[in-house]
Structure formats: structure tokens, C-alpha cells
């Protein structure tokens, strides 16, 4: 056993955490090594001084200040709880309002569906996904205006986009460039990634 190892074991020995086999080795080393014996003795005396020292005591104002801080913390916790309670009340009000709005809108939707067959003015004033005036405006500013089909049904709106920008197609992973162009038809029908193969 060398001195470094012995000193590590001395620390464990002081805490009564050294197993018996190592304890025996340490004893043997201490018998032969004066430096390590001295090390152990100095540690014993020095640490005893440290352990015997009474604990430091805070000033007399410590408890008063602590009490003040505890009261403040309690008050803050109470305010936080009340705010959270307020928030939950707010959310309850919001949920009730949302539910009422939903009921009203469902009623409105029912009325709207009922009006589909009756040719009510409600239908024409309801904007679709892309309302007609907006489409018209967009095409007026396009470089190559295309005559617009008249849109009355929102489900037909996709055809408006098709008319201007061409039909929606999958985008190839590696768009062809330069002279090595793939046939547009084949490319358009292929899935992303397949065009490159």
C-alpha cells in the first residue's frame, strides 16, 4: 500500500467505512510509515477542533426578518391562488360563452342548410373559401389574365386555381434542370423521388 492510498483509506477509517481487509492493510502500513501515522493523528486533532466548535448563531434580528419573509411568502402564495382561482373562473365564463356561441352557430348552420333549397339571399352573401370578388381582383393583377369561370359552389373553387396555375401536381424531389429535362407528363404522374430515377 502506498501513502496516497493509505491517506484515502485513513479518511474512510475516520468515518468507520473501511472494510476489515483494507483496515488490516492500513494498520500494517501505519506501523511502517511514520508520515501516514502523523497524518492520521493530525487529522484527528484538527477535525476534533472543528467538530467541537459550537455552531455560529445568527443575529437577534434573524427570526424577525425570517418571520417577515415567511409572511410575505404566504401572502404571495395566497394572491397567486386567488389569481389562479380568478383565472379558472374566467375560463369557466369563456367556456360557457364559447358553448353558447357554438349553439348559436349550429342553429345558424341549420338555417343556412334549410335556405339552400329555398334560394335564400343568405347563400349568395356567404363567402366561400375564395370569394368571387377576391378571385377576380387576383386575376386582374396577374401577368396573363385568364377568363374566370363563374363560381357559385365552394367545392368548385379548386378549378379556379387550376385555371390560373395549372392542376395541382406532386413536386419532384429533384426538379429537372438544364438539358436533362424529364418528360413533363411522366414527371407529373410520378411520386416525389421517382422522377429522379
Amino acid at each position, binding site marked *: 500500500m502506498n501513502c496516497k492510498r493509505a491517506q484515502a483509506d485513513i479518511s474512510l477509517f475516520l468515518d468507520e467505512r473501511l472494510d476489515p481487509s483494507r483496515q488490516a492493510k492500513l494498520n500494517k502500513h501505519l506501523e511502517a510509515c511514520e508520515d501516514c501515522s502523523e497524518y492520521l493523528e493530525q487529522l484527528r486533532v*484538527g477535525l476534533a*477542533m472543528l467538530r467541537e466548535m459550537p455552531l*455560529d448563531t445568527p443575529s437577534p434580528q434573524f427570526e424577525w426578518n425570517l418571520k417577515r419573509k415567511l409572511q410575505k411568502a404566504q401572502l404571495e402564495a395566497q394572491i397567486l391562488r386567488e389569481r389562479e382561482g380568478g383565472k379558472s373562473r374566467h375560463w369557466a365564463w369563456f367556456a360557457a360563452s364559447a358553448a353558447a356561441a357554438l349553439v348559436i352557430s349550429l342553429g345558424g348552420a341549420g338555417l343556412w342548410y334549410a335556405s339552400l333549397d329555398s334560394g335564400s339571399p343568405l347563400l349568395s352573401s356567404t363567402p366561400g373559401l375564395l370569394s368571387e370578388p377576391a378571385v377576380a381582383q387576383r386575376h386582374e393583377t396577374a401577368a396573363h389574365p385568364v377568363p374566370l369561370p363563374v363560381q357559385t359552389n365552394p367545392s368548385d373553387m379548386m378549378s379556379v386555381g387550376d385555371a390560373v396555375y395549372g392542376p395541382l401536381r406532386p413536386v419532384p424531389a429533384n426538379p429537372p434542370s438544364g438539358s436533362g429535362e424529364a418528360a413533363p407528363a411522366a414527371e407529373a404522374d410520378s411520386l416525389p423521388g421517382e422522377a429522379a430515377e
Partner: protein
Amino acid sequence: MVDPASQTNHHELSDEDLILQVQQGHRRAYDFLVLRYKDRIYSYILRMLRDPDLAEELAQDALVRAYVNADKYRTIARFSTWLYTIALNLVRNHVRRQKRNPVIRMPLLDGREGGQTEMEAPGNEPLPDDVLQKEETRAMIGEIVARIPEHYREPFLLREVHDMSYEEIAAATGLKLGTVRSRINRARSHFRVHWLEKFKDNAETPDGGPQQ
């Protein structure tokens, strides 16, 4: 409110029972924990930071945090370990902040410059020799401890002054058990070196240090 029956035996309750009472809303139970721990926590922080005002402030903060978070305490750890963990985190946060924005303080860390230490008695009345001797020894030990590198000092103080087991220290500091062992060993080596520097002159006195 507090049950009169439980109020009478607060002194006999363990720390863990007291904090469980706090969790149940018996605020008065916390007063007993404060009484038990205020000196220990203050003392630990003071020996870590060597600044009495700061130590008071952080000790108060630790006790407030423990109270505010009492419901988070679980009985898998001892209350003392949990409280020291809180105190230790506050100390570490302070040290981290101080490293970022260093503040020049009075030379408390090194009494050789003769700076006023917190160990000096207030007032101008002369103190009896034995009291002076004790205060001087206390100041010297404080200086020795302060010279141990901070990361060794943390587990060292918990072991030597607060008598925590290696397992409790590992839980409080977040260190592995092997690291706790080696840091305590290294801290003791540092302590011994500085202790010899301070006390070798008194080595021949009856209550002095080791013979050289």
C-alpha cells in the same frame, strides 16, 4: 388550526413528522423546524461564504423556500437532507452569480490581513481571556475551512460539522457516492495543511495541535 393535543408534543416529533404536519396545514409546526435548523443552516452557509449578512439572508431564504415548497417534500429523504439541498442550491446560485459579477469584499477569507471578522465581539468592553481565546480559535478554524476549495468544502462541512452520512451528502449535493468519498478525503488533506500552518506555533501548548 392546530390540534391542542399535537401542539403539546411538537418537541418530541421528528423533523419528518413536523414537516408532514406543515403539509397538513399546521403552520405552527414549522416554527419548531426553524428553531431546530436556523443555527445549523446559518452556520453552514456562513462557513461556505464567510459573510454573516449574506449567510443570514440565504439561511432565511432557504427556510422560506422549504416552507413554501413543503408540499413537495417526500419522506423518502430526511428533512435535514432536503433542507441542506435547498441551502446548498442557494449558495451555489450565489457563487455562480458572484463569479459572473464579482464583488470586492472585506478580507474575511484571509484573517492574516487583520480585517475585521464576524467573530469579533460587538462593543468596546474587554472580553475575558478564555472567551477571546475561543473566539480567536473559531476565527482561525473558519479561515482554514474557507481556504478549502469550494467543491471540496461543500461535502466536507456536511460531514464534519453537520454529521451527515456519505449517502445523505450524496443526496444533498447531487454527487455520486464515490465523488463524495474522494472530495471529503481531499478536503481533509487541504484542511490538515492549512491547520498545520495556523496551529503549528501552538503545537507545544497543552491544548495545541500536533507535535512537529
